[in-house]
């Protein structure tokens, strides 16, 4: 037990002097919450832009259609009246990105209107710009204007305008805000926990494959230390780094999500600080699992480089539940709490939606990760003891 602490202390000292390990820690612990913040801000901005911003429309030949101008303005758009322009001038105007669209009323609109021929109105817009919501609103205003005239004409001929609308479509959207956001937020939450694997990666490789590469492992094995003590020291040192990184990341992400107006896009983050503390605690077994599995894999590589190749596959594995399961749109089920990463993701997702998580689920989340971590550590110890391994160090 005492020698476990000696190994642990030495690995921690080395890791704290390893710029690469610290850079990974800083990068992933800070970068992910930062990315999250950027992404959420953008999504919310885009979703609410159409409501907040005034939509400016250029109308050419506005004098022919005073009623239309009224309809457009009633719909909350500002009309900028202009003299006639040719195609290049309109394109250039739209290129300035001030106006969402240009409506050009043909000069003969009034005469066509009077003789009940379809009057020509052109709608110019740039579909490459992200102004679809504004253009859609303009189009529906134009549609409303057109059908108002049609109805008035029918009435004048003694026909009920209802004859024009044999079908009345009424839409009902039953999605609640939380369920709509479940996929996206589920995926995001899963990615939180993948960080545990990324942060521990460098130390896991350095303390195993790195020792082999530097040929210090043979020497270490010749010391009066049990293989179990060696593995345990390296394992706990590696996990500690992941625990620190994941805790920082979760705290940052929590603050960010708390301060982001998620309700505007129908998402929820209803975690309190007590819940957050519990989530951080329940992440410790996950960090232990991540470090254990990475050590079990990396110790088989003869060099740091070989380990890197091996680990790039290993890191993909925890991403599968994090990315794929939300896409499958599965209902939360008990078995999910027995799969590391997925368990943590499900748990956090339930908490975020404001659901109560049963004690058994918490227990299963912690116990399953610990169980697999134990298996991986037992395997590593067994490997380190085996003659075949000793011969190859």
């Amino acid at each position, binding site marked *: 037990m005492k020698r476990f602490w000696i190994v642990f202390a030495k690995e921690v000292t080395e890791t704290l002097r390893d710029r690469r390990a610290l850079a990974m820690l800083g990068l992933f612990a800070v970068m992910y919450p930062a990315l999250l913040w950027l992404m959420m801000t953008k999504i919310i901005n885009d979703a609410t832009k159409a409501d907040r911003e005034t939509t400016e429309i250029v109308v050419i030949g506005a004098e022919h259609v005073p009623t239309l101008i009224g309809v457009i303005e009633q719909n909350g758009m500002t009309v900028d009246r202009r003299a006639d322009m040719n195609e290049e001038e309109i394109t250039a105007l739209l290129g300035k990105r001030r106006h969402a669209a240009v409506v050009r009323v043909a000069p003969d609109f009034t005469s066509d209107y009077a003789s009940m021929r379809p009057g020509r109105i052109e709608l110019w817009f740039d579909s490459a710009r992200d102004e679809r919501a504004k253009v859609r609103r303009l189009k529906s205003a134009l549609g409303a204007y057109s059908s108002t005239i049609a109805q008035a004409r029918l009435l004048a001929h003694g026909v009920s305008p209802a004859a024009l609308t044999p079908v009345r479509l009424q839409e009902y959207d039953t999605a609640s805000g939380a369920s709509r956001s479940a996929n996206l937020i589920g995926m995001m939450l899963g990615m939180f926990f993948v960080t545990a694997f990324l942060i521990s990666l460098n130390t896991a490789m350095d303390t195993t494959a790195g020792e082999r590469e530097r040929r210090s492992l043979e020497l270490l094995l010749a*010391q009066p230390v049990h293989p179990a003590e060696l593995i345990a020291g390296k394992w706990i040192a590696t996990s500690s780094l992941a625990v620190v990184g994941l805790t920082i990341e979760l705290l940052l992400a929590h603050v960010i999500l708390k301060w982001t107006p998620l309700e505007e896009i129908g998402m929820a983050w209803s975690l309190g600080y007590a819940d957050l503390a519990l989530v951080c605690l329940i992440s410790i077994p996950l960090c232990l699992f991540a470090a254990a599995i990475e050590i079990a894999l990396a110790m088989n590589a003869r060099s740091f480089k070989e380990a890197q190749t091996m680990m790039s596959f290993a890191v993909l594995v925890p991403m599968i539940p994090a990315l794929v399961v939300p896409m499958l749109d599965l209902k939360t089920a008990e078995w999910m709490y027995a799969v590391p990463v997925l368990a943590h993701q499900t748990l956090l997702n339930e908490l975020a939606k404001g659901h109560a998580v049963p004690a058994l689920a918490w227990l299963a989340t912690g116990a399953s990760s610990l169980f697999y971590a134990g298996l991986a550590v037992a395997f590593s110890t067994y490997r380190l003891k085996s003659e075949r391994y000793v011969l190859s160090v």
Partner: protein
Amino acid sequence: MIITEDVRKKFGSVDALASVSFTAQDGQTTALLGPNGAGKTTLLRLLIGLLQRDHGNISVDGVDPARDPIRVRRDIGFLTDQFGLYERLTTREHLDYFAKLHGMAKADIRRRTDEAIALLGLEDIIDRRAKGFSQGQRIKVALARTLLHRPRHFLLDEPSRGLDVMSTRALRRVLATLREEGSCIIMATHVMQEVTHLCDDVIVIARGRTVAQGSPRALCEQTGIASLEDAFVSLVGTEEGIAA
């Protein structure tokens, strides 16, 4: 004292050690002389309990390394041509780490470290990190580590491979100190010069068997050949894998 009796070890169907028997006395430097691939490294790994023998007996001061490897290792200093330094640790931290693994008390570590600094001239590198150390500096650190816990036994596996003159002299100085203190030193080597300069006793090993044991002079008398080198070649039966 290290005693082996008819030790055998197979890897698959290959006999790494076919039959090895010898006694290495305290206060002596015993050379384990053999061509490359004779089984020297395998034998040393059996002595520290890293590998398990298939047959025979091994006793390191009465302890069997297969039964209690931890106890045996506590009293062994092990040095190979790979010095196994940690680049991000200073020399002092490196020595501390291994001394603590051997269960040494803090005061002892400090005293022994000061002794090692004086013996090997480590003053300029004791608080420097190992990154960028020269080969000579590396072996000094490795030597300091090996003798810090004052083990009763020393196992050296081809220690002088790739050493310059100054480093070789440091190695010899350490070996002389240890021999005076009554340690039992076994040095696996295929370099004749080291044997004649450093060793009191020679065990000749070839194709996994001990073929002769005795002082360099006794070996010459046994074969009736004047130079140890020729005697060795005649004992091993080949010139392959031997360095003058």
